[in-house]
């Protein structure tokens, strides 16, 4: 195989536009023997798969788990982490067939993939180990057998929450004999979602205790700054951290590429999409199997269309370039994954859907079209390239967005910084209260019983007062007809998808689009791209959640614009200070697609626009907001906008640490003159419908938040703004940092 990085560097134009080129040194493998007490059938089966020894981290994880210690494994992509849990689990089943284990994956797609891999190992064992997926797609007729007989149950937290725990009596065998609980993709359980899952795990542990089992947890995570802390928050008990990977790694050549400026006056750069296409095409021509990551579904389709034209399949053969994103049908996705593993595909264009642990083997090169948004994701996407000991290439191509431009021009910011922290709050009162209801439904609470180390008596008394529970003797019994788990959704986004129906011939479903993207991708007259084929949306049946499309061939695609607004519904708390007022309360966040543009392929010129007539998406939630009642000193009216945006960005950066949530759980919304307060206002709102208590907490912790924001600003060494403090100057303006400083010194009191 050629040296792809040399090939790239051979191109003068590529070289000229690089802002950074780093080489990450290779690592030789660290081997270890199989744990001595491992069932001998396992090493024999693994030998048939070509595995004769374990990497050091695999051996360590197995050893600790088999000793009954909870483990969290953090190692890079493709370091063989699945063996870390498959070995202890299979060992336990082989030694005692009564043993049960539970696998939790954040999505259905991942569980399917894992099951395939596990089956591969079980086949070699030639032992009848019963492994089943139990999720929304499991046929009702198969469920009773799975509940009784499955030795390994593969599911997701949502299913555990709504289908397994409330029906635990039917899972008697599972709960009595539960030995291991595997939580893969631990880093996904951040923020509000993670807080929910932490409560689901407390419920699981409570039932295990009832049935007399105490499972060992084995967690796997992608690289985050604080895996140990996060696992402890999620599980509520200390864990053993395994983070020294013994897997070999080839040399990685990491390039930062900034597309050339095409219009110097307007500062317009060549599109990241077209540059990514060129770089990917060059890599494919050099023989590198390449993955291209793009942030939007639309760009996935556009890029894969371009690359398909460039690399047409041989006559009668399958495409060698494929797109991949959520919304493709499962069968289609399986086929792409298999073709990737088996090398039949030369290039795949994907959203971050493939950043997750889906097994596609490892490729030679990764092209990141746009900065993925976090340091952790960037490393994870770059980690998709790098097969065995061979060298690999990763290219980050910046878009013209301010954040991308900042990162690409400050490579040290990226390379020197550790990945983001992942946080969750297992004691968020809103979330805790809703799961206590579920727990009380599952098993009556004893007076004095703790819930994952917390005393729930206050909540239980409250529920009894509202006649949800009935206290009798020393217990609280469920006392309504309701089914509480059904009223609690673990995720903010609803699962309800829009279905895309192709009516060119016999109507058939070709894909799905989630509810929040649907107005942008499936409005009438939109060009919907699926696997590079163009379809025009003829009719969007909004209430029925169906879009009817017809195949077309046009030379453009469409891009829709979204307008967001926050409207105050009810003020639940307010407080006045000398120069500002703060509030928290209920708000309505409205998002409405306004118009769409027709954009010509390749040239990207605008061919015209059209209106979108769709109802706005509304979300009822809670917000904290702060409005300035006095003018900050030395801030011009013009600079105020940037200053507010800067303070909002600072708050967005510090709030997750204080509110113990994920940055994605919150949104900030600055307004120079809010229609509600008629003053310069910053809103901080909760992204879960109904709110999860973050706004109220922000209101309570306001001074701490403001002080932390001021510290962050002062402590940041940048000259005039960066994404870590007020935002990139390209986004908020060069005066923003100074203006934000003035605003904060007014809010915090003492000028620093």
């Amino acid at each position: 195989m050629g040296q792809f990085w040399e090939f790239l560097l051979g191109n003068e134009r590529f070289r000229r536009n690089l802002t950074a080129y780093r080489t990450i040194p290779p690592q030789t493998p660290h081997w270890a023997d199989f744990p001595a007490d491992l069932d001998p059938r396992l090493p024999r089966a693994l030998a048939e798969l070509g595995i004769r020894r374990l990497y050091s981290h695999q051996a360590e994880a197995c050893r600790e788990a088999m000793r009954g210690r909870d483990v969290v494994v953090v190692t890079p992509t493709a370091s063989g982490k699945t063996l870390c849990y498959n070995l202890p689990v299979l060992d336990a089943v082989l030694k005692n067939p009564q043993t049960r284990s539970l696998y939790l994956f954040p999505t259905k797609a991942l569980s399917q993939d894992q099951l395939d891999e596990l089956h591969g190992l079980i086949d070699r064992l030639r032992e009848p180990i019963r492994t089943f997926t139990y999720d929304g797609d499991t046929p009702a007729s198969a469920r009773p057998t799975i509940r009784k007989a499955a030795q390994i149950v593969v599911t997701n937290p949502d299913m555990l929450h709504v289908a397994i725990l409330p029906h635990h009596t039917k899972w008697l065998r599972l709960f009595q004999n539960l030995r291991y609980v595997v939580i893969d993709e631990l880093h996904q359980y951040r923020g509000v979602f993670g807080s929910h899952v932490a409560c689901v795990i407390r419920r699981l542990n409570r039932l295990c205790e009832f049935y007399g089992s105490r499972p060992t947890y084995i967690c796997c995570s992608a690289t985050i700054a604080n895996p140990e802390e996060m696992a402890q928050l999620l599980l509520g008990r200390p864990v053993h951290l395994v983070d020294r990977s013994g897997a070999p790694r080839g040399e990685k050549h990491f390039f930062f590429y900034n597309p050339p400026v095409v219009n110097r006056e307007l500062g317009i750069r060549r599109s990241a999409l077209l540059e990514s296409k060129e770089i990917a095409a060059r890599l494919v021509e050099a023989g590198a199997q390449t993955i291209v990551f793009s942030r939007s579904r639309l760009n996935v389709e556009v890029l894969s269309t371009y690359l398909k034209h460039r690399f047409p399949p041989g006559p009668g053969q399958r495409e060698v370039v494929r797109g991949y994103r959520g919304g493709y049908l499962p069968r289609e996705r399986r086929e792409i994954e298999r073709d990737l593993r088996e090398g039949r595909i030369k290039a795949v264009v994907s959203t971050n859907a493939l950043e997750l642990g889906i097994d596609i083997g490892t490729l030679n090169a990764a092209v990141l079209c746009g900065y993925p948004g976090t340091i952790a994701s960037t490393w994870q996407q770059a980690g998709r390239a790098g097969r065995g000991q061979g060298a690999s290439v990763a290219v980050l191509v910046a878009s013209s967005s301010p954040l991308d431009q900042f990162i690409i021009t400050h490579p040290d910011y990226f390379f020197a910084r550790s990945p983001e922290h992942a946080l969750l709050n297992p004691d968020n009162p809103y979330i805790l209260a809703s799961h206590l209801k579920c727990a009380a439904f599952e098993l009556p609470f004893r007076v004095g019983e703790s819930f994952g180390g917390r005393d729930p008596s206050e909540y239980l008394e409250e529920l009894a007062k509202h006649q949800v529970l009935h206290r009798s003797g020393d217990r609280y019994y469920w006392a309504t007809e309701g089914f509480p788990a059904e009223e609690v959704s673990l995720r903010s986004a609803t699962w309800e998808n829009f279905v895309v129906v192709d009516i060119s011939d016999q109507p058939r479903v070709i894909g799905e689009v989630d509810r929040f993207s649907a107005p942008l991708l499936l409005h009438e007259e939109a060009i919907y791209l699926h696997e590079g084929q163009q379809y025009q949306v003829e009719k969007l049946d909004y209430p029925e959640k169906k879009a009817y499309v017809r195949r077309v061939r046009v030379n453009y695609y469409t891009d829709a614009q979204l307008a967001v607004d926050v409207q105050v519904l009810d003020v639940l708390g307010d407080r006045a200070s000398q120069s500002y007022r703060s509030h928290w309360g209920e708000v309505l966040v409205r998002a409405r697609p306004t118009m769409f543009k027709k954009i010509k392929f390749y040239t990207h010129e605008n061919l015209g626009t059209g209106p979108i007539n769709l109802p706005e998406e509304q979300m009822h939630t809670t917000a904290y907001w702060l409005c300035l009642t006095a003018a900050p000193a030395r801030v011009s009216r013009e600079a105020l906008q940037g200053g507010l945006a800067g303070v909002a960005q600072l708050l967005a950066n510090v709030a997750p640490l204080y509110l113990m949530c994920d940055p994605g759980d919150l949104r900030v919304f600055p307004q120079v003159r809010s229609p509600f307060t008629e003053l310069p206002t910053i809103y901080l709102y909760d992204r879960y419908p109904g709110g999860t208590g973050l706004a109220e907490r922000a209101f309570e912790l306001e001074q701490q938040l403001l002080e932390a924001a001021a510290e962050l600003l002062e402590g940041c060494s940048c000259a005039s703004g960066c994404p870590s403090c007020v935002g990139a100057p390209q986004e908020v303006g060069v005066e923003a940092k100074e203006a934000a400083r003035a605003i904060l010194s007014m809010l915090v009191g003492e000028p620093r």
Partner: protein
Amino acid sequence: MNPDQLAAQLGSSVLDAGRGPCLVKRGWLGELHINLGCEQIWQLLGLRRPPADGIVLMDAETTGLGSAAGVFIFLVGVARYQHGRLHYSQYLMLDPAWEPSLLAALAGELATVHTLVTFNGKAFDWPLLEARYVLCRMQHPGEPAQHLDLLHLARRLWRDMVPRCALTTLEAAVLGRPRSWDIPNHEVPKMYFAFLRRRDPHLLQPVLEHNRHDLWALAQLLGLLTHRLQSGASSHPEEMLALALLHLDRGSPARAVELAERSFRLSAGWLRTRAAYALARCYKRLGRWQQAVEPLQVLAQSNSPRAAWAAVELAKIFEHRLHRYREALHWVEQARRLRGQTSLGGQAISSTALRQRELRLRQKLARRMAEAGSNN
């Protein structure tokens, strides 16, 4: 109010075997005739053995739907049918804390049951009962030797005649006695929760009555069923058809044919095609090939999803049984026309089989012509 006072108010007694009190109310529900004497009837009901020692009917009142862990059974009515008389026992849980007491008493009652009769008990009452024993860490009594769930039979017989097969709907539509004074089903959990808060026995009185009423309706439904199964008397072609199919599956084809013929003559439209299908199956089973032709023709020319099947059957009968090859060829032709028409069941027809049949029929016809020629 303490358990003894509640018991007195509700005309019941307190059982307490160390697991807390449980109320039991016993009495006499009424007299009726349930014909379980002859073998044919219990076979038609789907029972494998004669109900030894009488039968027991059971109906549970619960705090919700489904069998998830937070749904309690707070009242179980059990009625024993012996010598034409129906005696009931109702076990009432006065507080969720005393659930084990109810379950223990019930286990004693169920231990001796040979044939249990319920309405939707297989999907609801029984699994929920099992869940409750698990939750109270008690050994559950194990399902009786036979469990007859009348919902399944009621669906077979009356699905086409009533909007939904709920016990109260059937009471009104089939037994002809609508329940007007009773509390509706969905009020039952609410009354119980209100009782838990207020300990007022008057709140339970109507629930106990409701439960007894359900037991009585269950018994009557069983009585009506056994009567229908024995006499076959019915004035509804829908019911006749359902009875015919029941006889065909579990009883005597001779009775089935009788009922199916009557249903076929009396019905029209969609029902007639279904009757034709049943009748054709009856004739086939009895080997009455000539007679099977008429219902099959009706079916083959209808827009029923069995049309394609009927055409193939006709081709087979004309070829192998009646040896009328030209007619057989005609039905091969018809079957070919129906092939691929999903709404008529044509996707199941194999074109290879059709081609082979046609070839064989043409050979047979040619041979017959040759034979006729040589005879002349």
